[in-house]
C-alpha cells in the first residue's frame, strides 16, 4: 500500500502537476483503492478544516506585515541600521538575517510565519545589496526553522499535550538546540560568504552615521519592541501580535511616512492573498493525506517493523530519525507529530531515552523537514516570496540542510545538549 502511494506520488509529481494536487490526487487514488467511497467525503471535509484552524491564523498577518513594511520602506531602514553594525563582516546581511530569526524565534512559534515575515523583508534587501537570490532565500528558509525550536513554540505545546511531557520543560530544552542551529548556520554562511566574496557595507560606524541610521529606523525599530514587549508583557497572544504588526505597519505607511497609496495597498493585500491561496492548496491537501495514513494505520505498521529490526537504542534512534526525515518530506509537522508521536515515543522511551529528549529530537527533525524537498511549508513559502523555482532553491538550500542534519545528529546522540538546561531549571530530576 505505501509503495503504491509512493509510486503514484512520484509519477504525478514528475509530470508537473501542482504539488498540492499531487498529494490530493494520490490520496483520492488511495481512497478508491481501499474501495470505501465514504472516505471520499473526507477530502473536502479535511481540506476545509485544515484551513479552519487557529494555528494557521498568524501566518497571513506576518506575511502581510512584511509586505507592507517593504512597501513603505521600513525594511530598508531596518536593514540599513543593522547593516551599520554587522555589515562590515563578509556576508553581514546574511548574518543579520539569521540573528533576526533567532530573535524572532523568541516571539513567534511558527516557522512558516517566520519565512513569510522575514523572507518578504530580507530577500529583497539582500538581493539589492548584491547577494544572489537563491542564496538569500536559502538563508531565510534555513534560519526560519529556528523559530519553533526556541520558545515559545506552538508545536511544543502540541507535543507536550499529546505526549504528557512538561511544556515548560520542552521550552527549556529547546533553547540550546535552537541556538546551535543558529550558530551552525552562521558558520556555514561565513564560510560561503568568504568563498563567494559576498558584499560588505562600506559605511563606517561613526557617531554621526549611528545617529542618522537610528533616526531613520526609529519606527522600524519600534515594531519588534511593540511585538516582543506585547507578547512577553502579557498584552497580546502571538497571533494577535501578528495582527498588531500589520496595524502598525499600516499606521506608519498611511499616517507617518504617507508614502503608500490605497491602490498600492490594494495590490499588497492581493499579492499576499494569492500567496495564501498557494499555501492553502498545499496545506489542505497534505492534511487529507495525513487522514488517509491514519485510517490505514500505516504508522503502526512501521513502528512494528522497527521493533522487529533491532532492540539497540542507537539503531532504533537512527531508524526513527530516518523515518521522520522521510515522513517530513511529504507531510506537515502538525499531523506528523499528532500521528507519529504516540507511536514512536514509546519505542525510544522503552530503550531508556528521556521523554523530553525524544520530544526535542522529534520537533527538531520535523522542523528541518519543513525545508526538505519535495514538500515543506518553509520551502514553499520561500519559493512563493522569492518567485524562485523549486530546483533552483533546493540547489542553494542543500548545504544548509546538511548542516542542520549534523546538528540533529548531535541532538540525537548527545543528550546533554537537550537535557542540561531543563535539569538546571528543575524539570528533570
Amino acid at each position, binding site marked *: 500500500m505505501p509503495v503504491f502511494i509512493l509510486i503514484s506520488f512520484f509519477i504525478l509529481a514528475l509530470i508537473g502537476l501542482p504539488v498540492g494536487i499531487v498529494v490530493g490526487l494520490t490520496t483520492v487514488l488511495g481512497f478508491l483503492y481501499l474501495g470505501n467511497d465514504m472516505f471520499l*467525503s473526507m477530502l473536502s471535509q479535511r481540506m*476545509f478544516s485544515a484551513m479552519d484552524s487557529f494555528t494557521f491564523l498568524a501566518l497571513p498577518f506576518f506575511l502581510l506585515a512584511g509586505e507592507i513594511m517593504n512597501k513603505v520602506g521600513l525594511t530598508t531602514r531596518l536593514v540599513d541600521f543593522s547593516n551599520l553594525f554587522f555589515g562590515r563582516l563578509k556576508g553581514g546581511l546574511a548574518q543579520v538575517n539569521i540573528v533576526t530569526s533567532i530573535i524572532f524565534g523568541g516571539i513567534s512559534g511558527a516557522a512558516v510565519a517566520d519565512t513569510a515575515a522575514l523572507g518578504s523583508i530580507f530577500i529583497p534587501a539582500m538581493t539589492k545589496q548584491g547577494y544572489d537570490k537563491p542564496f538569500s532565500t536559502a538563508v531565510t528558509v534555513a534560519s526560519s526553522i529556528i523559530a519553533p525550536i526556541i520558545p515559545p513554540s506552538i508545536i511544543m505545546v502540541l507535543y507536550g499535550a499529546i505526549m504528557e511531557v512538561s511544556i515548560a520543560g520542552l521550552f527549556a530544552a529547546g533553547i540550546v538546540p535552537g541556538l546551535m542551529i543558529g550558530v551552525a548556520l552562521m558558520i556555514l554562511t561565513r564560510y560561503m560568504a568568504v568563498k563567494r566574496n559576498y558584499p560588505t557595507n562600506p559605511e563606517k560606524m561613526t557617531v554621526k552615521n549611528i545617529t542618522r541610521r537610528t533616526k531613520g529606523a526609529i519606527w522600524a525599530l519600534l515594531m519588534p519592541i511593540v511585538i516582543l514587549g506585547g507578547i512577553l508583557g502579557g498584552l497580546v497572544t502571538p497571533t*494577535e501580535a501578528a*495582527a498588531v504588526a500589520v*496595524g502598525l505597519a499600516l499606521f506608519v505607511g498611511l499616517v507617518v511616512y504617507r508614502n503608500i497609496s490605497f491602490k498600492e495597498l490594494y495590490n499588497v*493585500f492581493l499579492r499576499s492573498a494569492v500567496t495564501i491561496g498557494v499555501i*492553502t492548496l498545499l496545506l489542505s491537501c497534505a492534511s487529507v493525506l495525513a487522514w488517509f495514513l491514519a485510517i490505514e494505520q500505516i504508522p503502526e505498521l512501521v513502528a512494528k517493523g522497527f521493533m522487529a529490526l533491532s532492540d539497540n537504542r542507537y539503531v532504533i534512534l537512527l531508524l526513527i530519525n530516518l523515518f521522520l526525515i522521510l515522513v517530513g518530506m511529504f507531510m506537515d509537522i502538525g499531523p506528523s507529530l499528532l500521528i507519529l508521536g504516540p507511536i514512536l515515543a514509546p519505542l525510544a522511551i522503552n530503550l531508556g531515552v528521556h521523554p523530553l529528549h525524544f520530544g526535542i529530537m522529534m520537533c527538531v527533525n520535523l522542523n528541518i523537514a519543513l525545508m526538505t524537498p519535495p514538500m515543506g511549508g518553509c520551502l514553499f513559502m520561500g*519559493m512563493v516570496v522569492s518567485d524562485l523555482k523549486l530546483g533552483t532553491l533546493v540547489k542553494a538550500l542543500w548545504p544548509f540542510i546538511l548542516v542542520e542534519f549534523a546538528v540533529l545528529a548531535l541532538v540525537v546522540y548527545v543528550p546533554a545538549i537537550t537535557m542540561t538546561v531543563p535539569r538546571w531549571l528543575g524539570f528533570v530530576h
Partner: protein
Amino acid sequence: MQTDNPSGITGFAENLGRFIEMAAGAWCVICFVAMTLVALMGVFFRYVMQNPFMWTEEVARYLLVWMGFTAISIALRQGRHIKIEIAEKVAPKPVAKFLNYLVDALIALFMGVLFYQGVLMTANNMLSASTLPLSMEWIVVAVPVGAGLTLLQLFLGVVKKIAADLTKEGAKAE
C-alpha cells in the same frame, strides 16, 4: 493580451478569465482587510473597552478560509502553484505538450472531485458556528466555490491553449 485575436474565442476566454480573476481578487482583499480589522478589534476591545467579543477569532478564521480557497483560482490563472518543472524541460516537444494537457486534465479531475464533494459537504452540513448564530454552510461552501472557480479558470486557459495550437497548425498548413 489577446483581446484583439481574430478567432474571438481566445479573446472571450481571456476577458472572462481576467474578469473572474479581478472579482475573486476583490473578494480576497475584502476578506483580508476584514480579517485584519476583526483581529485588531479583539485586542482593542479587550484593553480599551475591557469587554472583548467572543467571536473575533472565529470570524477571522472563517474569513481566512474564504480568502484561501478563493485565491487558489487566482494562483492557478497566474501560474503560481508550486510544481516540479522537469518534464517540460527535458521531454521532447510533442511529449511535453501532451503532458501539459494531461496535467490540465488531472487538475480538472481533482478539482471536479473536490467540487462535487464540497457541494455534498455543504448540503450535508449540520454545524453552526461556535460563537455566532450562523450556519457553517456559509463557510464550508468556500471549498466548492474555490474548486468551481479553479475549474472555470482551468477551462478558460485550456480553451486559449487549444485555440493557439490550432492557429499555429493552421499557419503551418498554409
